[in-house]
């Protein structure tokens, strides 16, 4: 086995030094009754060539934006990935290291995380960000838990326009914490219904949670949400599943959000069938000590040189055990590094240009689609790069018909929103050329003729 260096001679010599006769003698403490008395029933080992042949065959059974024209979004986005990212994260000093427990030989990871925390603060308009979370949905759940700790209240209002999978993860995390989760309706413009919110907010409410942009691609009025939440002492949690939008939109921090979470996948991470992605988590200065996850801070060494360390660890599970702010141990280190490299490359100008392209392409697609007979737009609120389309013909039929001509037209909404069973969610990014959008429009039109 090429990953295991022992020769037969080594094994003999080592057993001798240990003072046992056979390898089996090393396992004397494992009772006979629980020993596995047969070989593991797994396929024979594959050589490198066989392995890649097998995996390529599997890969060939998948549809991707390379094989299909794709308009799928809904919390995972097909964006430009600069070549630099994979080259840099392939430095094995980055990807084969672990948690920077020994700062003297982990400064690469630590400084990059410090830069990540800074960039997330700049992007979200918040004061402090952690070293990352598993994904946007779990970060959202952790934000709800944090709001509950900060306010000592047990009722949480979730906008129905928040990504349904984020809502589901919040429900899982809160399942046995005696917390009341209440849904807030969506108004006709596709934003969270402020009237319904006002009716449901009370002085037992810990948090209001909304997407920005929301699941329908509509841009919420964060300032209004914040104002209402704050009036009853609740925290506003803003979840940003599509951070490219923040290249253009006012930051949630500027608009009054108390906790900003989101997913960094759009910033240089491959779609990879849903993960690994990376959650980000940002708070106000006064709440830093109540936040979950790892934090990196700046300090100096014995000789006065600048260096970075993991800090404020007394919030964390390895010190505080059952009293920790979260059970999270790792973060998504390498993914956070990818996001950091992405933001460094795009910078001030690039992120704005990318956001403007998304806005323009989606606006073009929206306009074209709305002109087709049998299809209409559902919401009229300001939108970024996604929008909901209503179809006269059954959605499943429409999507299947388009698949046959190589187009993944969108995500059906029936399962998550029974009232929108005749609708699907379309996403258009800078990766979709005008010809692709025109092809989508033509194919939809074709069915009507």
């Amino acid at each position, binding site marked *: 086995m090429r990953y295991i260096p022992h020769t037969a001679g080594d094994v003999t010599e080592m057993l001798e030094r240990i003072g046992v006769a056979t390898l089996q003698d090393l396992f004397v*403490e494992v009772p006979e009754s629980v020993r*596995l008395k047969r070989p593991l029933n*797994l396929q024979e080992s594959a050589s490198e060539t066989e392995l890649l042949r097998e995996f390529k065959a599997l890969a060939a059974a998948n549809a991707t934006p390379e094989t299909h024209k794709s308009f799928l979004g809904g919390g995972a986005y097909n964006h430009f990935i600069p070549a630099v990212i994979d080259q840099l994260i392939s430095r094995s000093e980055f990807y084969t290291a672990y948690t920077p427990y*020994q700062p003297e030989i*982990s400064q690469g990871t630590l400084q990059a995380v410090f830069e990540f925390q800074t960039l997330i603060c700049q992007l979200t308009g918040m004061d402090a960000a952690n070293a990352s979370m598993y994904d946007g949905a779990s970060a959202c759940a952790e934000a709800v838990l944090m709001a509950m700790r900060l306010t000592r209240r047990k009722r949480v209002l979730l906008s129905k326009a928040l990504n349904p999978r984020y809502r589901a993860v919040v*429900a899982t995390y809160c399942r046995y914490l005696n917390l009341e989760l209440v849904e807030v309706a969506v108004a006709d413009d596709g934003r969270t219904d402020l009237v319904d919110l006002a009716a449901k907010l009370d002085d037992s409410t810990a948090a209001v949670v909304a997407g920005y942009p929301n699941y329908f691609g509509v841009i919420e009025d964060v300032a209004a949400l914040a104002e209402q939440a704050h009036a009853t002492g609740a925290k506003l949690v803003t979840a940003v599943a599509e951070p490219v939008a923040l290249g253009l939109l006012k930051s949630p921090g500027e608009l009054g959000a108390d906790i900003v979470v989101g997913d960094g996948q759009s910033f240089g991470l491959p779609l990879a069938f849903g993960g690994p992605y990376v959650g980000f988590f940002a708070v106000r200065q006064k709440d830093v000590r109540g936040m979950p996850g790892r934090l990196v801070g700046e300090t100096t060494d014995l000789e006065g040189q600048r260096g970075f360390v993991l800090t404020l660890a007394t919030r964390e599970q390895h010190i505080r055990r*059952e009293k920790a702010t979260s059970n999270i*141990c790792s973060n998504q280190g390498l993914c956070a590094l990818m996001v950091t490299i992405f933001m460094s490359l795009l910078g001030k100008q690039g992120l704005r240009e990318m956001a403007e392209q998304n806005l323009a392409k989606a606006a073009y697609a929206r306009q074209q689609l709305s002109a087709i007979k049998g299809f209409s737009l559902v919401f009229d609120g300001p939108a970024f790069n996604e929008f909901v389309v209503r179809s006269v013909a059954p959605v499943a039929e429409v999507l299947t018909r388009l698949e046959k001509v190589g187009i993944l037209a969108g995500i059906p909404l029936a399962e998550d929103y029974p009232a929108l069973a005749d609708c699907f969610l379309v996403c258009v990014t800078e990766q979709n050329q005008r010809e692709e959008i025109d092809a989508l429009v033509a194919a939809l039109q074709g069915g009507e003729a």
Partner: protein
Amino acid sequence: MTIVGTSGLVLNEKLLFEHSDPGRKGYSLPKLDVPTAELPAELCREEISGFPELSEVDVVRHFTRLSTWNYGVDSGFYPLGSCTMKYNPKVNEVAARIPGLAFIHPATPSHLAQGSLELMYRLQVALAEISGFARVTLQPAAGAQGELAGMLVIRAWHEARGSKRTKVLIPDTAHGTNPATASLTGYDVVPIASDGVLTLEEVEAHMNDDVAALMVTNPNTLGLFETNIEAICKLVHERGGMVYCDGANLNALMGIARPGDMGIDVMHFNLHKTFSTPHGGGGPGSGPVGVTEELTPYLPGPGIEFDGESYCIEATRADSIGRMMAFHGNVGIMVRAYAYIRSMGGAGLKYASEMAVLNANYVRARLEGVYDLPFTSRSLHEVIFSDKDLEGDCHTLDVAKRLIDYGYHPPTIYFPLVVKGAIMIELTETESQEVLDEFCDAMIAIAGEARDNPELLHQAPIRSRIRRLDETTAARKPKLKWEKGA
């Protein structure tokens, strides 16, 4: 002894923000091929204050320099106990980057995602076979999230039976994630003592009608097999509880013994430990969970199913605890882990466990007598020493820092908490006798230095790019981001 640590030329590097120069750019986008669009001005921000402006070369050099300040498994021996820092095979990286696997959208209809679904299904089946469980979910993102999923499953099972138990028993040797997870599941934690391994008597004394579960780690964090595990599981079951196993140390047992056969009800895997996926500087990992047949209805949903013809994402079951992640978990990590299992085969996995245990016992034999060995029963994959016998007022931290000068990543230190000044060494199977000998020589030399020249240890590391860092000030006056002029 050849000391691999030297003082080479290491380049300094500023923060990204300190390099930034207005007007530089490090990207290219295609020319916009549709008319421009605008949002209402009141929705739009000014430029992102502080965001860097850098060329591609600036960025590449910056991160390349940072990488050289890190120590990874590819740099050298990394005996970080409980983390299983084995070699990360390169073909796994290539496999995960095959475009069809890397670029598929998670909302792709099942019939157009058969490759990923088949791979995930095969991984589920392989992990079930290795662990002896009826069914595995791949959704959790990491070990701690796997623990959460597993404990939620146990709680859901209790609730379904109308049982309102409130407590969870956790041995004092457990990882901190165990009590934190129990707490997140709404349970109160009852710590129980172990004397190296858990005794039936200790569990019996605490196991009553209010205890929902026992959380164990097997082999435990002392590297010892829980020899009473069968009797303990039987007792817990008789008294209406469930047994959760932290699978962090599965690398000792592949093909040797299966947790599912010991009476354990739920266990999480750490694909980034046992199954060779890279640790990434702190993730992404992946923490699948295996359960017995009885608990399958409560697993997180949706799961991956095979109907004999094709693979599909099943609807979330009515009794499921729900979703752990926005999509299907860290699929890119699953691809790497499955590549590892395919490369090793069943016999190879068993051999890996045997060599991991051989390595631990070899290092133990070489260092016993030099360092204090608090527990003397046979070690499995890792061995725990303490600083008790060190001279010169030197402690575990000093040994760890001095090891850096010798060119090694230090072991896990001061854990488990039950051993004062613990030095927790996990070798893994991918290290040769030669590497182990050099490491042991260094450990022995350091014990000698503690006696003869303790100041050397107190000052260590002296060869690293930076010296010991002031962690107290970092925590007292936290500076968590760069600010202009600060």
